[in-house]
């Protein structure tokens, strides 16, 4: 009997059998086969009926450093949520692998995508001007916003000049950055999110916890509770189909009545002035095609030179994010519909400054696929909201400090440095190396708490000198014994939480190599 027969769970690749669903509720293919496109799980999951309160995110107190470890601990204390979250994201990671392995030129595509982004970012002024000229020639109103406040002011002016009071929008990380929803609410504009996950988060007054799947940290029971409170659904009915249909039925009237529609932007094509969005629900197309006024918010780093380059990125994006070959909808907005107005807002919000950071500018290549989050052991076990920032997971660790060094000073320490994020990144950002570089910057600039600084100095003194390192390791058998216990298990070290470090091997690799290999070669 093989190992697989003895343990069918291992064969299925299931890591948390307790969240396996007894029945498969997902839609079926025409031939009755199982489907796993869009964000679908490749193996059905279902959190057990036991009621477990949803763990909430990090406590945000002004500019004070976010305590990610504290929020992560509360997430870990909710085992059903943690297991469902881990299972779901690891499943997406596996689907990504299967999809990537199906393309012989995958690595070449990553190289090309990375090089296109590097070229565009180093000629961004030229391509932005080209984009603007093309968009204007297409009859589009083009605006430039220095920061989030500027973006919100411009959009509010556009809305007011049309007497618009309601706006339907699709998911956009940029508008999250700008605090757009909160600003508009304070100014009497009603904003309706039309992506299901984002709508759940809006109704629960929470930020999105994942770039691609905003409500991935919630179980269906959490969603049922939110919808019962806000949409008047049956609180005891947590059927996913019922919940999704309730959202569709309650959102559609808003879409039909909205004065304005808004989308974000996955790619902006300089040569044609086109905004490209990639969605599975078709909600960007509803937002862009139904209301009489349409607005597209564009981060300036989203520019790519030509239409032919889009082919490279489209082939990478959904495969990296969800393991599907393409999103259900890939939409190209280039000019206004007859009798309507189209506005595009080009937003900087710190991007031009980031371009000047020698070690960190390549983080601007990010296409927001979320692959680094799905693969990250810290993210999967602590939930996106524990980061207390717009961007969570590995990409968040290297972007967030550019917005606020003090507030996000501890985030680069929420990493095991395993490098998996770098390996899955479709545009080859050296994420884990930038995480390490941020640690150095934040220590040098005294942005991190004293305890962690002491640890860094002690470790740094040993790690920076190979001979001293080997002597120390040899004497102690392991770095885990060199570093004091408080350095591994103290509350600031997020990834030491709930994990005892493995026993150190009796012999170091270096000593083993010297003993077994070097002598073979006569040295």
């Amino acid at each position, binding site marked *: 009997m093989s190992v697989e027969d003895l343990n069918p769970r291992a064969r299925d690749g299931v890591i948390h059998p307790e969240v396996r669903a007894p029945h498969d509720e997902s839609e079926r293919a025409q031939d009755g086969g199982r489907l796993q496109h869009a964000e679908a799980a490749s193996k059905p999951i279902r959190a057990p009926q036991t009621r477990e309160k949803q763990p909430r995110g990090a406590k945000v107190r002004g500019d004070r450093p976010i305590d990610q470890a504290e929020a992560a601990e509360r997430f870990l204390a909710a085992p059903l949520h943690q297991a469902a979250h881990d299972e779901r994201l690891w499943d997406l990671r596996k689907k990504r692998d299967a999809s990537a392995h199906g393309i012989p030129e995958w690595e070449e595509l990553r190289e090309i995508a990375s090089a296109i982004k590097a070229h565009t970012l180093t000629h961004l002024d030229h391509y932005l001007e080209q984009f603007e000229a093309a968009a204007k020639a297409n009859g589009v109103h083009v605006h430039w916003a220095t920061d989030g406040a500027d973006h919100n002011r411009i959009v509010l002016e556009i809305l007011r000049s049309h007497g618009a009071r309601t706006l339907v929008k699709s998911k956009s990380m940029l508008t999250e950055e700008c605090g757009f929803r909160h600003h508009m609410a304070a100014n009497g504009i009603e904003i309706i999110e039309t992506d299901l996950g984002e709508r759940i988060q809006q109704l629960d007054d929470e930020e999105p916890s994942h770039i691609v799947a*905003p409500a991935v940290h919630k179980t269906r029971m959490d969603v049922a509770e939110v919808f019962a409170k806000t949409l008047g659904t049956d609180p005891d009915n947590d059927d996913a189909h019922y919940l999704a249909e309730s959202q569709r039925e309650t959102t559609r009237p808003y879409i039909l009545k909205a004065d304005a529609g808004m989308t974000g932007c996955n790619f902006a094509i300089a040569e044609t002035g086109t905004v490209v969005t990639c969605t599975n629900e078709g909600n960007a197309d509803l937002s862009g095609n139904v209301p009489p006024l349409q607005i597209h918010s564009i981060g300036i780093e989203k520019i790519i030179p030509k239409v032919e380059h889009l082919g490279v990125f489209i082939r990478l994006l959904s495969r990296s994010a969800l393991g599907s070959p393409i999103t259900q909808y890939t939409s190209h907005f280039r000019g206004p519909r007859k009798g309507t107005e189209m506005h595009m807002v080009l937003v900087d919000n710190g991007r031009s400054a980031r*371009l000047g950071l020698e070690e960190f500018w390549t983080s601007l290549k990010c296409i927001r696929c979320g692959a680094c989050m799905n693969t990250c052991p810290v993210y999967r076990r602590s939930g996106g909201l524990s980061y207390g920032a717009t961007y969570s997971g590995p990409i968040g660790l290297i972007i967030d400090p550019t917005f606020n060094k003090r507030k996000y000073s501890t985030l680069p320490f929420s990493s095991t440095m395993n490098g998996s994020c770098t390996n899955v990144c479709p545009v080859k950002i050296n994420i884990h190396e930038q995480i390490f570089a941020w640690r150095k910057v934040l220590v040098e600039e005294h942005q991190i708490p004293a305890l962690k600084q002491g640890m860094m100095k002690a470790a740094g003194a040993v790690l920076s000198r190979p001979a001293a390192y080997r002597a120390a390791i040899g004497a102690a058998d392991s770095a885990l014994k060199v570093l004091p216990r408080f350095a591994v298990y103290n509350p600031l070290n997020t990834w030491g939480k709930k994990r005892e470090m493995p026993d150190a091997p009796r012999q170091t690799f270096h000593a083993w190599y010297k003993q077994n290999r070097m002598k073979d070669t006569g040295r």
Partner: protein
Amino acid sequence: MSARAGILAAIRANRPAGDYPLPTVPDFTPLVGDDLVAEFGERLKRMGGRVAEPGSADVFAGVRERLDAAKVVASAVPELAGNRDLQSVRSPQEVEDVDVAVVRAVFGIAETGSVLFTQDELIVNAVAYLAQHLVVLLDPADILPNVQAAYRRPEFARSAYAVLHTGPSATADIEGVLIHGAQGVRSLTVLLVPR
């Protein structure tokens, strides 16, 4: 200084050092076999779409049941009359009660099972999302091998709106349970009908 001037000046001041030429994108060998029709159908089904064979007497045989059950049918193709004239629609909201919309695709992509529409095929863009079900006519001769070939087509540079549909509207935002008809159409069926 205007926001525009300020942003461009900051970009120029902060330009990273080094030479980063624009790479040439090579011609990749299509991942699909020679039978593009079969490959297209197979991949579309995996993305939740349906493929129906046209009947010899009735090209709509594969979706006849759906059409007969529909109260409002909006057709953008000469092959079917329908009972909602898209040409006379003044605002997108008017098509919110459409049960089935019938549209011709510009082309299909075998690699992904996608079909392309522009504002010319849709007549009213919103009908492809507000309708409950979408029926797509696709000429088998219009199937391209891959995404790369698709982005060489001229439609993207000249259309005010161009969209690739790959199956129906879908979500799995709640515990990964796949649901069709998240916000847009609940089903997408492709009929392979020559122009």
